[in-house]
Structures are given as C-alpha cells and as structure tokens.
C-alpha cells in the first residue's frame, strides 16, 4: 500500500504547492475537520476557510486557506482548490486582528436579511480573518 500521495494546492494566484509527496492531509471540511490518506476513494468535498495541515519532508506545514474544494481524482491525486492560501509567515496577524474586530463590529450592527450580498461578504471576510489568526497563532 502506498504511504504517500501527491498533493496540489491551487489558487487563482498560482499553485501554492504542486505535486508534493505527503503522507496525508487535514482539511477544514464543510461538516468539520477531515483527514485524507493515500488511496482514498475518488471524491469531491467542499472546504471552508480554515487551516490545512500536512507533513512535507517530515516538517509540519500549516496554511490558512479560503473557501474552496478538495478533489481526490481517480488516479489518487489530491487537489485542493481554494480562493487563497497563505503560509503563517505571510500572515500579518496584527492587521488581521484589527480587521476582524472591524468586521465583527459591522456584523453586530447589521440588521438586514442574512441572505443579502453584504452580509455574505462580511461573513466570508470574518471566516477568512479567523482562519488566518488561527493559522498564525
């Protein structure tokens, strides 16, 4: 049984990692954290903003990712498509914290329908900022 699998992390700004060998990956799924190991059955799942963890060359890697998808192809390749991905070193924690406070303040004041685009945008921003802080912290 293979103990490694190929992982791609793709964003619209380019591939964060491409074709790296990992023993497994943990992702923030829509229904909670989930881990994917080699020889997983081919499947598609949604990813919400959060922290992705995997081991590369025996070193733990953490990445803050935005909303997206995880796809395990028939050949067993794992592709994570997310709208953005940042390594802890790229995260400006202080700025993120300040922005988060601002966004939370606006969310608290918000009284319109929760289906409106403004609310969705705010909520997405909040999730993304929280993911960054958790990843850096």
């Amino acid at each position, binding site marked *: 049984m293979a103990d490694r699998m190929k992982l791609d992390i793709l964003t*619209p700004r380019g591939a964060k990692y491409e074709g790296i060998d990992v023993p497994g990956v943990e992702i923030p799924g*829509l229904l909670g954290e989930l881990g994917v190991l080699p020889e997983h059955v081919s*499947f598609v799942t949604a990813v919400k903003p959060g922290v992705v963890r995997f081991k590369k060359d025996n070193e733990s890697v953490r990445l803050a990712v935005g909303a997206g*998808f995880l796809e395990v192809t028939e050949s067993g390749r794992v592709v994570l498509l997310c709208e953005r991905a940042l390594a802890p070193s790229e995260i400006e924690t202080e700025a993120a914290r300040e922005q988060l406070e601002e966004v939370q303040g606006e969310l608290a004041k918000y009284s319109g329908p929760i289906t409106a685009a403004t609310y969705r945008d705010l909520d997405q921003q909040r999730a993304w900022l929280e993911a960054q802080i958790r990843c850096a912290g």
Partner: protein
Amino acid sequence: MANLKELRLRIASVKNTRKITAAMSQIASARLRKAQNALLAARPYGERMHEVVQHLVAGIDPAERKAAHALLEERKGGRTLVIAMTADRGLCGGFNSNINRAVARYLDQERAEGHEVVLMAIGRKAQAYFKHYGEDFGGREYPAAEDKTVVDLGKTVASAVIEAFLSEDEAERVDRVLLQYNHFVSVLNQEPRRIQILPLTASESEDAPTQEPTFEPERSSILQHLVPVAVESLLQQAMFNSVAAEIAARRVAMDAATDNASGLIADLTLEYNRERQAAITTELMEIIGGAEALKG
C-alpha cells in the same frame, strides 16, 4: 528655404513620437511577462474548477437543475445582461474596439428581434463608447482589472451579477449573463470571445466522466458552496486573460508604431537631403553664372 525648415521640424516631431512609442513598447514587454505568468499560474485552478463544475452539473437532469441550485436555472426569454470587458487605456490596437464592436453588434441583433438586453461595463473604454451611444449602465460600471486587483474585482463583479440574477424585483432581474472579453491566445493573437456566465451550464460536448466521483456532503450542499465560487473563477480567468491580452496588444501596436515612425523618418530624411542638395546646386549655379558673367 521654407520647405527645408518644415521638413526638419517634421523629422524632429516624428522622432519624438518614436521615442514615446518605443518606451511604451518596452514598458509593455516588461509588464507582459508578469501578466503572462499570472495567467499561467491561474490556469490550473480555473481548469480544475471548471472540470469539477462540469462533473457536478452534467450529472443533474436539466429539468431538475433549478431545484438543485438557483444559479443553474435556465429561463426562457427575459432580460440578458452583457458584460463588455475592455481596458481603461487606449493605444493598444484593436483591443478595445473589437470588444465594443462585438457587443454593439450583439445588442443591435438581439434588440432587432425584440429581446431585452442591458449592459455592464468593465473598463473605461467600454463605458465611454457605450455612453456615447446613449446606453444606460444603471450603476453597473467597474474599472478595468489590473494584475493585483483581478481576484477581488472578480469577486465584486460575481456578487453583483449573482444578485442581479436572483433579484426578486422584476425591473432589476436579469435572466442570463454573458461576458465579452479578449482571450489571450498568444502574444500576437488575442481573440474576442463571448461566454455565458449565468446560468452555469455543462458543456455540450458530453465526454461523460468514466466514473462518477463520490460527493461528500451530498451534491446539493456542495453545489451551494461551489456555484458562487465557480462564477467568481470564470470571471477571474477572463480578467487574467484580458489583462495579459491588453498588454500584448499594446506591445504589438507600439512595436508597429515604432517601425512605422522609423520608416517615416527614413523617407523624410531622404527627401530633406534631396532638397538640401537641390538648394546647394541652385546656389552654386547662381555663383558660377555670376562669375561667368563678370568674366564675359
């Protein structure tokens, strides 16, 4: 010798123009590499995203698409929103006018058949062009994307079109969203393309996946999550293409302009020298004529 002076001024003026076009071409070359890299980097994401959506949507019976996700609903008739994606600046050959003409042609054609079409403009060139013809954007105007703003602008535009598509208000709602943009084929070739953004469709060519992947959670929850992201991704891909195509078009146009200026300068210099020689010859003839007369 007024003609000589005129020629000299003309040559100086063309030389100045050539300096500008040569500089613009160089700037475009430098920016082109960056834009091309951004486009190449974004392609794998866009392509995978497209494939996943195809898988998901193709597996749903067309009749049930509306129930699966509101953004998949095919509506008959109604209002079409056309997005004209151009640049903010000119001097890039046919880049802007190709888009504007294609959209204008589409508008005429559809309106002649009695269909309702409204416009959204991305880039100042489209705004100026269609305003001249008295089109009303109703606030649907955005600046052109640049390397750094593509991702965010894609999101903004995506949420605007999704809101228009799902609007409860009859007067606001659009039933179809099309996008006209320049596809970057190569540095020398940009192709105006029109694609459908909403409703999301599965492509006609049914190369059905050999094996249906499992969806976890089930298809409909994934769709809820995926469809808005897919719309964003479509727009972002188009913007990356448009940015690279604009710079490539400018480089080609400015190269051609520089070559033309060089040609013009060569012609003018030749003419100038000929005139100068003619003037000298005339003067010499006069002097010799004078000397001969004195000798006489």
